[in-house]
């Protein structure tokens, strides 16, 4: 590939999403980036940074929790030209699981943002890519999607839902020229996980970004970062429930 010229980042303030955009711009000028976030002003600093690297930048309003608006956002982003890469990078961790245990309304809000929002925005993105006959939808999933943990099963199940949705969307796009790339990172220290102790097999936004750029050139559909997680989870997924429940992860 190597010729990504227009990128849409849904969740324009996501630290991982921003790292991916930086990596896509590496050594290139003239790339057009659309940053979509709840408050477009909050992308200002990042937008200036990108302009400093020779990109042109547009900031749009986007709320994952407002599915009715998703068509308009994606169409607006695509109005200026074909989108080579669309990244779905937003997400919320939600309150600690022990609090959510007693707060079903907040728990369902996490699912709304992380899962339902991905479904509607993902369908809109796929529509545009299918029309173009090319382009990649990059979804930030998580290893948490592989098997939900007692410690954060609302978040985990919301990521699992969106991961499963994206796998199906990928299949629906076969033959259209468009594709879906699902990234499954391990723990990353970002503002989402601020104050939390890094897990074993943690990674960084930069490592995820590098893996994404590499995967965009190839044909992989699901990528674990770090790569060892793929092997690890192939085992963990099949551990007996009693053992899994007690694992200190």
């Amino acid at each position, binding site marked *: 590939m190597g*010729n990504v010229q227009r990128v849409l980042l849904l969740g324009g303030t996501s630290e991982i999403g921003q790292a991916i955009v930086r990596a896509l711009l590496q050594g290139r000028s003239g790339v057009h980036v659309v940053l979509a976030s709840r408050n477009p002003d909050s992308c200002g600093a990042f937008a200036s940074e990108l302009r400093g690297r020779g990109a042109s930048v547009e900031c749009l309003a986007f709320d994952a929790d407002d599915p009715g608006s998703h068509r308009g956002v994606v169409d607006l982003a695509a109005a200026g*030209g*074909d989108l080579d890469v669309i990244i779905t990078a937003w997400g919320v961790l939600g309150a600690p699981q022990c609090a959510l245990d007693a707060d079903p309304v907040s728990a369902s809000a996490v699912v709304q943002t992380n899962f339902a929002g991905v479904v509607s925005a993902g369908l809109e993105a796929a529509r545009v890519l299918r029309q*173009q*006959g*090319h382009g990649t939808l990059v979804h930030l999933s998580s290893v948490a999607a592989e098997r939900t943990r007692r410690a954060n099963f609302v978040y985990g199940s919301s990521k699992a839902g969106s991961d499963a949705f994206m796998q199906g969307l990928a299949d629906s796009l076969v*033959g*259209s020229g468009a594709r879906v790339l699902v990234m499954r990172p391990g723990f990353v220290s970002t503002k989402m996980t601020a104050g939390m102790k890094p897990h074993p097999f943690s990674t960084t936004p930069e490592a995820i970004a590098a893996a994404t750029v590499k995967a965009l050139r190839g044909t992989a559909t699901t990528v674990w970062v770090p790569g060892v997680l793929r092997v690890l989870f192939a085992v963990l997924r099949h551990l007996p429930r009693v053992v899994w429940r007690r694992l200190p992860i």
Partner: protein
Amino acid sequence: MSLSRLTGWGRTAPSVAEVTVDVDPQSLRAVLGEADARGVLARGLGRSYGDAAQNGGGRVVCVAEHTVDVDAVSGVVRAGASVSFDELISALLPHGLFVPVSPGTRRITVGGAIAADIHGKNHHADGSWGAHLLDLEMMLASGEIRIVTPLADPELFWATIGGMGLTGVVLSCRFRALRVETSRVLVDTWRTNDLDGTMSLMAERDADYRYTVAWIDSLATGGRLGRGVVTMADHAPASAVPDVSPLGFSDRARIGVPRLVPSGLLNGLTVRAFNELWYRKSPVQRTAEVQGIGEFFHPLDMIRDWNRLYGRQGMLQYQFVVPLGAEGTLRAAIEGLARGGAASFLTVLKRFGSANDGYLSFPFPGWTLTLDVPTGLSGLSALLDGLDRTLVEVGGRVYLAKDSRLSPDHLAGMYPRLEQWRAVCERVDPDHRFQSDLSRRLGMRRRSAAST
């Protein structure tokens, strides 16, 4: 009609379109009538390297215009747009005629030659393809078929030559062929020690030959920078070829490249070895060597699908021209590429002669350099982006038929007549029926210069 994944010859940036082959004018009119916002594009043999012959999400048509009419007396030929140069050369030679411009492969169509306004090793003497055209028969966006001549509608004529298929679908053209006595060329060869040697030889001796070109050792640095092998040739007169069939022409059996070539087969090491070998095997000087047409003009055609040698990631062709007087930029570019380790398998230098009136025609008086490198190379994008910026500063440009990576910001700087070309397109195709991945990527049909 079927959904197909198309790429250019470089095999990068694929996209999927509804492809219809063997389209007659009536069906073409119907396709144009049904076109949606993603538009329609004609495609030839897909030998453009980048995304010029792709139209993702839209319609792609290959026309069924296969006839060749030769008037042996006047040397004027009418050729259908889907006729390949292989077929054309085979049809012309028995009459003692040859194509006035021959690119580095015979596997391109007449339509592709017009849309890219192709050039050959004789550009300094004869100009590009457009210079030899008498008229074009084309279908416009409206479905109307029109004969376009440089006298009756110079704007549309010259917007179509080099217009990358965006003004309409060419059905056929008339051109003036070149008279030859034989199907052989007489080739003189020199090996040069450095860039000055290569360039001065070409500048001094160009005028004496119809065909000239230099192959450059892309990895030689320091004092050897720009060393290469210069070949100059003319069509052989009958007296030079005491042959039973002076106009004979046959395609040699060709070998193929296996489908699953490992990605790194053409890498820095093998390319360096190849460059060294090619340089060493060339004579220091040799004169009047008799070569066949394929051997001299289309050496790569001997290996079918040679682009697969670059593996799954594909290859990137980069061809630019700098005006006379900007030789410093050429030297800096060759230096930068050698330093960046941009191991190019085939690097070719040529001195262009005068330009024609094509609004987006690539050649103009100056030096053109062509290289192909595997896309995986790290730092390549930055290197070429930097080169693009320099080109805009010195009044140079890249060749759209080979491009897959130019930023839209540089298009108007490289092609100063872009606005006039756009105006002609607006006149004949106000609804933007004709589109391609290239045109969208570079914003070619964008209205006015109001880019954001």
